[in-house]
């Protein structure tokens, strides 16, 4: 009501356009924001380039700097491990790559009106690590800010947390606004640790916000951190009031995020490549499954059989299930059947149905033990009847399919028992 009344008053001020719009001009360097010197108090330095000004914060870390349970230099060990492992994996980094751990802070969630106001990059510099954070001085100085990121230079590998669907598209949006003046934005190789965390901790971590992963897996507990959703308000306040004291908190938040990216990379690499188990059955089963999907069957089998050896049958149920497929691939039918049988105790729904089908197939065609095959078939049909993961149409089709097997097996059994 208050808003509408005010607006209704403005109605009187609404005029009609009188003059034509002037032609678009070439890039005109924007003015420095009046408050820019004030911002220096927040520990920011001012960088000037052809496109205007940008604020910057730099932090250097010695290589034995510890964030959570790792020292930063363990990143170099992780890269070495990948080089030795010779596995095709989306995570693998080689020593020639120029790796940037990258995170942004924005004024909103989506759309052309959302600005990126903070670009943070962490990279190795000889034996040290260096963090560069660029802060948008004001929206008019956006081209200066984007140019300083140097993301127009080729040959970088960017490591992010959910960057593929958030940070990078946002960056492309901002670049589009300035494309008439700026060199073209590169399309670097991207490693998204959000994607890999989803694969590794599926069914294990309920929420995969970076901060949760830090607490549960990386041994990091942040003190006096601001929640990420406050960042937009703090920045817009800094621009409107000229006072940047709140920004320090946002810079700190972003710094932690990026350091955690590096730690997370080290930790994930260790989970994927080290032969010592340091996480639960669910995690390693996920990793085994991931290797399988990447067609790294040898790796997959190794990880999954390690799970079956280390954990009891109940915990390893799902690992048996995936392992059984690997064994079947290797034509180890007896082993495969045993694994499926062990899996049956814990798995449910669609997976259980698949396992029963595999067992029925193997006992019919490989082992030729028809009565066992029949038993699994009957059990499978039972599951389909009760299934809530199939709709009526699918149920009908599945039942027809399974009934064929049932009839065939009954026929074979009859023939077998009639035989002399």
């Amino acid at each position, binding site marked *: 009501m208050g808003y509408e*009344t005010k607006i*209704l008053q403005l109605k009187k001020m*609404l005029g009609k356009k009188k003059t034509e719009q002037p032609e678009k001009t070439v890039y005109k360097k*924007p003015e420095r924001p009046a408050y820019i010197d004030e911002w220096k108090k927040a520990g920011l330095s001012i960088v000037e380039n052809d496109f205007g000004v940008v604020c910057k914060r730099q932090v250097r870390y010695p290589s034995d700097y510890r964030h959570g349970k790792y020292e930063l230099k363990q990143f170099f060990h992780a890269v070495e491990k990948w080089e030795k492992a010779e596995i095709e994996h989306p995570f693998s980094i080689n020593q020639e790559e120029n790796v940037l751990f990258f995170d942004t802070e924005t*004024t909103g*969630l*989506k*759309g052309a009106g959302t600005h990126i106001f903070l670009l943070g990059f962490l990279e190795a510099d000889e034996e040290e690590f260096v963090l560069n954070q660029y802060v948008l001085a004001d929206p008019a100085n956006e081209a200066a800010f984007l140019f300083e990121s140097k993301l127009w230079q080729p040959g970088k590998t960017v490591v992010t947390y959910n960057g593929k669907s958030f940070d990078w598209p946002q960056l492309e949006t901002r670049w*589009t606004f300035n494309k008439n003046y700026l060199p073209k934005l590169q399309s670097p190789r991207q490693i998204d640790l959000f994607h890999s965390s989803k694969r590794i901790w599926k069914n294990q971590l309920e929420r995969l916000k970076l901060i949760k992963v830090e607490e549960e897996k990386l041994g990091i507990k942040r003190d006096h951190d601001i929640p990420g959703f406050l960042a*937009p308000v703090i920045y817009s306040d800094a621009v409107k009031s000229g006072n940047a004291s709140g920004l320090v908190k946002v810079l700190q938040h972003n710094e932690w995020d990026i350091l955690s990216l590096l730690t997370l990379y080290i930790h994930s690499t260790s989970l994927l490549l080290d032969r010592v188990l340091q996480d639960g059955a669910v995690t390693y089963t996920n990793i085994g499954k991931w290797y399988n999907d990447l067609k790294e069957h040898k790796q997959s089998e190794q990880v999954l059989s390690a799970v079956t050896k280390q954990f009891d049958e109940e915990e390893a149920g799902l690992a048996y299930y995936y392992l059984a497929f690997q064994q079947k691939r290797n034509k180890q039918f007896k082993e495969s059947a045993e694994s499926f049988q062990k899996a049956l105790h814990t798995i449910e729904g669609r997976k259980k149905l698949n396992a029963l089908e595999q067992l029925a197939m193997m006992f019919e065609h490989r082992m030729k033990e028809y009565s066992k095959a029949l038993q699994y078939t009957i059990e499978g049909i039972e599951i389909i009847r009760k299934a809530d993961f199939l709709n009526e149409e699918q149920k009908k089709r599945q039942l027809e399919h399974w009934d064929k097997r049932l009839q065939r097996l009954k026929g074979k059994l009859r023939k077998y028992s009639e035989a002399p």
Partner: protein
Amino acid sequence: MKKIRTIDELINEWQQDEELKQNIVHIATIEGREGEYEDFPDCLHPSLKKALLERGIEKLYSHQRQAFDLALAGKSFTAITPTASGKSLCYHLPVLQKILEDSSTRAIYLFPTKALAQDQKADLNDLIDSMNEEIYCYTYDGDTAPNIRQKVRKAGHIVMTNPDMLHSGILPHHTKWVSLFENLKFIVIDELHTYKGVFGSHVAHVLRRLVRICEFYGSQPIFICTSATIKNPKELAEKLTNTKHVLIEKSGAPAGKKTFIFYNPPIVHKTFGVRRSAVLEATNLAARLYKAGIQTIVFAKSRVTVERLVTYLKELTKNKINDGSIQGYRGGYLPSERRRIEKGLRDGSIQIVVSTNALELGVDIGQLQACIMTGYPGNIASAWQQAGRAGRRQDSALIIYVANSSALDQYIVNHPDYLLGNSPEEALINPENILILMSHLKCASFELPFSTDDTYGEFEVQELLEYLQEEGVLVKTNAHYYWMSDRFPAKDVNLRSAAEENVVIIDQTVPGGTKVIGEMDTYSAMTLLHEEAIYLHQGVQYQVEKLDWEEKKAYVREVDVNYYTDANLAVELKVLSEDKAASYEDVTVSYGDVSLVAVPTIFKKIHMTTLDNIGSGKVHIPPMEMHTNATWISFSLPENWSEEMLTDALTGAAYAIGSFIPVFIQCDRKDVTVVPQVKAVHNGRPTLFIYDSYPGGIGLSEKVYDLLVPILELTIQHVQSCPCEQGCPSCIGAQDHLTDGKEKVLKILNILLNEVM
């Protein structure tokens, strides 16, 4: 049972029929006309020519040729296109031609609804297939799968969408559509006439934002609009698009003979002036057409009436198993159901379809032979649109208008010239509506920063931007205003009326097998989906068991009862500001902004056939608030009158005046509402409020302010000459008991007229 006859045979028969001929007030015939043709343009691309020839098109209608020439000359235009005049070629031809000449060319097609876009896509793809060229056209709406969105943005030559999607799904994300905006040559707006009122005013701004973004990317598209016949197509197109348009007024398409029958149901109760129900009469006439083997469309004004008609008509086929030859069709049916009905109409397996105005729009159902309008659809343009549904090219077509007992209907059925001789209504929009403008100014600021000397469309907006800066959503740098808020402004603006979201209707008749059977806008849901309401869907009755207003879900169960429900809305009005006022001796007439609160109060259960009230209950739904424009007339309680006497008289006067406003300002009956208040909140005096039925208003009640004298004159004349004794639905509304109501209403009306004259 069936005896197939032609339309002309049937009309002769009815004129001899003792029962029918008394009710036929007037018959008018409009002769058919030959088509006007032109050769293909010389430059027409050979692939296009081939595709046309394959479809048996060897020449263009004159309007199609004119459209092609204008588009290629880079001129925006608007073409008036009656039903079945090949309107889509007016835009397909030039657009496809330009794409064939330069494959970077892009076009946006805008349809008022998602369903229409999807319909047109199938049609356009057929044409492209027979051209054998690499041209991609896609629909882009809420149904577009995420995995092909990328492709649509980058490679779609023609993007077919609706204003809502453009508003919240495309414009705020324009940086993902660079190749579209850099190369946009055509913006096609189909069904222009639907962009009126508040919706049209919103769309006008969406288009200004679109043009602004095109300017940023350096493209200068032209507008191509097609419209049904309205009074002011050129003005509407120019106001909507903020661009000069050439008007193509004359259609070159041939048309068959049309016969109009004006049908007035007989009076069954003289004292109360009660006529037989228009719905029952329409059912009877439709049954006759059905038996004569004539494919017919029956239009009704409300969803409830559609369902009642379907129920009655299905009696005709109840002895046949699985007979689907009679169908209902209206908004709220699911798309798959609608597609099936449209197909049934084209292939002839459906013989009668009963529809709300959903089928006025360009859904392709082919042409039917006859059309019955159950009650006046509210405006001349709609009446012609509905009539246009009947008439196969060479065949004679029959249009029957069955009047109901309302005052406006009775006026129209007795004055055929009003419908036949008048030009259709103006479609009004008001992009200057400040509430609408501000919402879109925010969206525009979000999309592209305004500079400190920018304008927006035809508006000077620097002061408004300054205001938004003070409000904290924009920050001002030396030369620009930038969006600086974590809000996504397009999400806060809904282009369609007050109703933000639809209520989903869930059938829980089968335990464990609950399914969604339809949806409805929130405003209609207030009176149609309250708890205990009987909701009709394809002639099946459902009772609403639970309405979850927060979640916008209505849970229904199938029932079999002999009544339907009807709910009342109570309205409270407050004056916010008075912009104009005229004082007379004892009467004041004012115009300004008002706030109104609508509360559904009670519902009645009404017997299906006797129409008796057989029960009632309370409706528990929170009130809905709206700000709009109004003209109001205040006066004093006449001497020796009690307040009760005044209540009845004012209600009758409001009813009578409301009926005739559309005659003067050429709007739809429901666009303007008249509400009596015995003691108005702002001045404590008896007052009649006449307000625009849309948030923010669209300038209708302002017109009433200037036309009060002739409106009152006609109202008095009509009430006086009405043959009833004590007042009836055709003049002052149905009266509960025998009183001198009519006399009192006339007294009030005369007091007002005498003073303001």
